[in-house]
């Protein structure tokens, strides 16, 4: 493998974060390579979500550097700044605009990419934004959601809300896509659908960081896995290496299916 030659999209070096006396992250070093799906796994409370939230500016790291295209993300950027740099995020509970139509849900992120974080033009009607609407329809078609695109998004099933949220992220052509437990709380059927969907995105070579509990999801998707336990990375490698890693088994304490 030519890991050394590929570009590093996100470079996390020496990140520490503590809440009061609790060391949530200690000296995290992580390189996310371009075009790869990088999974971060670990038991509950290992610091996975903290790490993700530090990357997107929701939490401020105590020390260390998170480098994304020359910007240090620990420098207190706001979520919209980080999105405008090219990082999109999928949430544990799908975050959509329930009162808008499905199509409008996908058009909004397309506006964000085209117009930046603020644009006010009230004299061009939404219906005249044909290019954006067509692009949105194209993405919905890709994810098999083009039928009923004028329905209220809030009426979708959880699996379909996730699908919609992914469409909303993809239309921004992000340089990095962060997925926070994309299958959490989903029925098996929805989980499998989501995996299929993510496989499809993977073929496009988009760089992804995925945080996941479900080992089935991780081993079907990830190119590389980092294992987080008690705020530190205890193992890193290809899925096959991780499967047999003694430290990982220990961290999961007898989760035999690992």
């Amino acid at each position, binding site marked *: 493998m030519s890991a050394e030659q590929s570009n590093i999209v996100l470079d996390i070096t020496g990140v520490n974060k503590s809440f009061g006396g609790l060391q949530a992250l200690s000296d995290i070093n992580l390189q996310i390579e371009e075009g790869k799906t990088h999974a971060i796994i670990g038991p509950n409370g290992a610091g996975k979500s903290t790490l993700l939230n530090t990357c997107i500016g929701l939490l401020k790291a105590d020390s260390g550097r998170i480098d994304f295209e020359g910007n240090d993300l620990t420098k207190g950027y*706001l979520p919209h700044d980080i999105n405008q740099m090219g990082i999109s995020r999928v949430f544990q509970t799908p*975050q959509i605009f329930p009162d808008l139509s499905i199509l*409008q849900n996908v058009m*909004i992120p397309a*506006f964000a990419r085209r117009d930046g974080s603020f644009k*006010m033009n*009230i004299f061009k009607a939404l*219906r005249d934004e044909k290019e954006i609407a067509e692009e949105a329809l194209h993405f919905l078609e890709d994810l098999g959601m083009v039928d009923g695109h*004028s329905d209220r998004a809030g009426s979708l099933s959880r699996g379909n809300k996730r699908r919609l949220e992914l469409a909303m992220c993809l239309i*921004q052509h992000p340089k990095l896509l962060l997925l926070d437990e994309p299958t959490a709380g989903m029925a098996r059927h929805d989980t499998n659908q989501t995996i299929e969907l993510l496989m499809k995105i993977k073929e496009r070579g988009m760089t992804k960081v995925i945080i996941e509990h479900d080992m089935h999801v991780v081993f079907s998707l990830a190119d590389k896995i980092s294992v987080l336990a008690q705020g530190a990375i205890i193992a890193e490698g290809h899925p096959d290496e991780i499967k047999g890693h003694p430290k990982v088994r220990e961290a999961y304490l007898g989760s035999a299916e690992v």
Partner: protein
Amino acid sequence: MKTIELSTPKRDLIILVVFSIIVLIAPLWGSLIGAGYPDLLQRFAIFGLFAVGYNILFGLTGYLSFGHAAFLGVGSYVTVWSFKLLTMNALPAIAFSVVFSGLFALVIGFICLRRTGIYFSILTLAFAQMSYNLAYSVLTPITQGETGLFVLNDDPRVIDGALGIVSAENPLASLFGITLDGYEGFYFCAVILILGFWLSLKIFRSPFGMKLVAIKTNQTRMEYTGFNHRPYLLAAFVISGMYAGLAGGLLAVVDPIAGAERMQWTASGEVVLMTILGGLGTMFGPIIGAVTIKYMENIFSGINDTLLASWFEFLPESITNLIVTIVSPFVGSGWHLTLGLMFMMIMIFLPGGMLEGAQKINAKIFNKNKPEQLEKDGVA
């Protein structure tokens, strides 16, 4: 029903034309319901405009401001000052009222929008009450405090003076020689209401309007989608503040006087009631609410005990007295009780406002789709 494709340019044009016709023939339908005199019609148009603007903030973004009467007051004062210092022409006066209330809204909005929800509402309320009290105390040189700001005969009026226009004994606002009182005053307000409605329609149909609704439904997602919600909310706040200032300016145009009571919190509360009563977040709802409240105020506050007694005089005297005793707290100066009851009824049975009621009836008669899908399709 709820897609952008459905609000065609043709449909929007029909909405605007129908609305304009209804507004312009208001003296006709007004006389049918006993409101056919200019003073009340002017109030319909002015408070309709106030509510249309307020709806852009409250209806689209969901931010409940309890301080919009402050902008109404600023608009009135600025207009009267323009009458005093420059000219009795109404156009520069209302232009100034829009500019100054906009600047005022920019400052207040910038501070209040640091908070959301109930804290935002309280901050706006606090600012409005501060403005009200300032108008009575420190700012008396500008506002004339309790007496209110009047137009006087010996005011400088430099532009009028330069053009050689001599003002009458008690100067009234004018538009290039047309005195803006009575029906002329109403039509002036009506045209501005139509323009204001057109602008609001544009906002509702624009991506900007959709983004405001998006902020209302999921601010977190909006942030993580790359939008900075602050300037959007501030823009909506300033726009609605400008509408309020314009409405305040028009109040001073049809009656050139400005008083601090216009800024009181009850006036802010009234526009909230109007918007909710008619139908929050809808195009027509706020205007329907404004007309209903101003109409009810006029009808019910005009009824007194003598009038009540004369209606029921065919009954035995004891029964007449009983009826008068029961009904009289709800009329005259107590008409707010009636308003309160009506508001409660509407909130309980028609949370979407009067427009929802109309749509439900409409849907029953024509057996159309679900009522909530009918109005909002431009944005939601």
